[in-house]
């Protein structure tokens, strides 16, 4: 499959994520949109990694492997982030009975 497809797909996913973060006020939705953006990047990394590997041919069997490595890192970090983020959201809900993101701006005062 040509690389273009992957690029357009991840671009679409990323844009959906951004628009979600910008427009939605529910913290959980915002959180999901962030995950969406991370995974769009993951998809792109894997796609480019594959492309490099093919371009290098048999001479270099490890070409493009860094992209796939990064994906694992991002997944680990995302898992950690999700656990911390969800914990914060739970505490937020317990204290305020709300998951509205604009409610958080009271930290300013």
């Amino acid at each position, binding site marked *: 499959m040509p690389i273009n497809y992957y690029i357009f797909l991840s671009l679409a996913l990323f844009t959906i994520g951004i628009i979600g*973060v910008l427009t939605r006020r529910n913290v959980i939705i915002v959180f999901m949109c962030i995950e969406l953006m991370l995974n769009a990047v993951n998809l792109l990394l894997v796609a480019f990694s594959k492309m490099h590997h093919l371009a290098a041919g048999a001479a270099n069997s490890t070409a493009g492997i860094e992209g796939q490595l990064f994906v694992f890192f991002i997944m680990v970090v995302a898992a950690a982030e999700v656990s911390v983020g969800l914990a914060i959201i739970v505490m937020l809900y317990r204290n305020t009975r709300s998951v509205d*993101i*604009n409610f*958080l701006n009271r*930290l*300013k005062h």
Partner: protein
Amino acid sequence: MKNLIALIPLLPFIGFLINGLFRKSLPKGVAGFIGSGTVLASFVISLTIFLQGTYSATPLQYFTFISAGSLQIPFAFQVDQLTTLFLLIITGVGFLIHVYSTAYMHEERQDHFARYFAYLNLFVFSMLLLVMGANFVIMFIGWEGVGLCSYLLIGYWFENVDYTKAAKKAFVMNRIGDLGFLLAVFWIIAKLGTVSYNEVFTAANLAKLTATDITGITLLLFLGATGKSAQIPLYTWLPDAMAGPTPVSALIHAATMVTAGIYMIARSNALFSMAATTNTIIAIIGAATALLAATIALRQNDIKKVLAYSTVSQLGYMFLALGTGAYVAAVFHVMTHAFFKALLFLGSGSVIHAVSGQQDIRYMGGLRKALPVTYLTFFIGCLAIAGIPPLSGFFSKDAILLNAFVYDKFLYAIGLITAGLTAFYMFRLLFITFNGSFRGTEEQRHHLHESPIAMTLPLIVLAILSVVGGFVGVPELFVQGGEKLTAFLSPVIKPADGLHVEHSTEWILIALTTGIAVAAILIAFFRYRTYKEEQPSAIGRLFENKWYVDELYNSAIVKPLNALGAFANTFIERSGIDALVNGVGKLVNYGGRQMRWLQSGQIGSYVLLMVVSMVVFFVLQFFLRK
């Protein structure tokens, strides 16, 4: 011997340390004992050197003081005949004044008393460094040290604002002179690469200097001397320096420190004898100072002010001698002057002590009966300074006037007039203070008393010295094999060979000087035997107000400088630097307030901003890559 010599300045320094560090706990007796004892010990060592005659023309090096490239400045002392003479004067007269101070200052608080002796010892230490140093740099250390001590002691009663102002004035005026000294030393280093006397004054090195160098160096050195030795134009600090305690005036502002300039020029006589222009300037300034100060002294009513102007006038005499090339006569006059002027100052201190701090002679009078010892010694001091034979002042003044006569008749005439004025104002002081009837308050009259033995004894010793001190320099005219001082100092100061005066001329000059002095004393006697208020004439007012020199300096130098300072304060400091510094602060403050809306706390707006700026960066990069 070398270590013994090092002890001479070291002992007073130790005394300074002890008195200075433990001033809170030292009883007055101990502080006074340490102060006087260390100076006495130095005097004994100096006397030993003098009696054994162990002089060394080569410097005694202790350690390398400054080593910079090819320039080596050793910390070295040079104890030759000239230095020894000054050592004896400084430690001898200094010791007497220390003893006198123990009684004079006994009403001071305990820690102030020890502080006083600490300063006094530090002064003696600095003065000894000044005369013992074997090069200009060591001399400069002492030179600065005595200036500092003079400042500290003038401002000793620092609660009084006027006194601290007088101290400041003395310090600033001295600094002007010190700059000249420093520049001269730099000049010598630049040309010769050494500052040691025995290297600078060698014929080979002196030949390296051009006429401009010699004139420049000597003029700058002389500027230093005018500051320290209170000559025109830097003399106005000395009369104000009378704010200090009277023994300080006697030691620093009459006997020793103010003669530093004369010592320095006498020490550099090899250099100065080659600078004819400078010598003329020195002679003229010396004569002018002598006359100016003598006229001012005629109409002063503060007992110490009269003596202060008299000191300036006598210093002028010494510079007249230096200018005419009579270095020995100048040093001779330094010695005799140290005796009789210290005597007069200490005598005035005794008088002030007796009349409970009063210094205005208009409120004294008739003290002869109450203070017999003070009166007698003061009388001897007046005779000595007036130049009545055979007291010490006669011989030294005669030597100066004789040299001035040979050098220039006009300068001689000024010297002669000054001699007459000196006799007149000193005896005016004597008669107003000690004759007539007492004009002070009843309380003071009741309190009148002769001073304690610790004060009268130095007076008596100094009076004896004032009488006999002149015999070391009796001219050939009177005694076969006279001029002992010239012979004594000949290794340091080459005797002049050009002075050929007929004996008859000498006799006439002596008769003239003595006649004028006696006449002046008689006029003073008839005029001031009984004191009455007198309306000053126009010229009298001019003298009384010191020729308005202080006012002139005030309007010509102090006020413009103050105006410049005020200008710098308002325009440069306030509206320039302050505005700049405050402006930066204000700008940051303003910027912060303007940026505040960005931190709204709305997560949405943060994210939007992030996205927008990322898009902007991408777009920018896209275009910039082309």
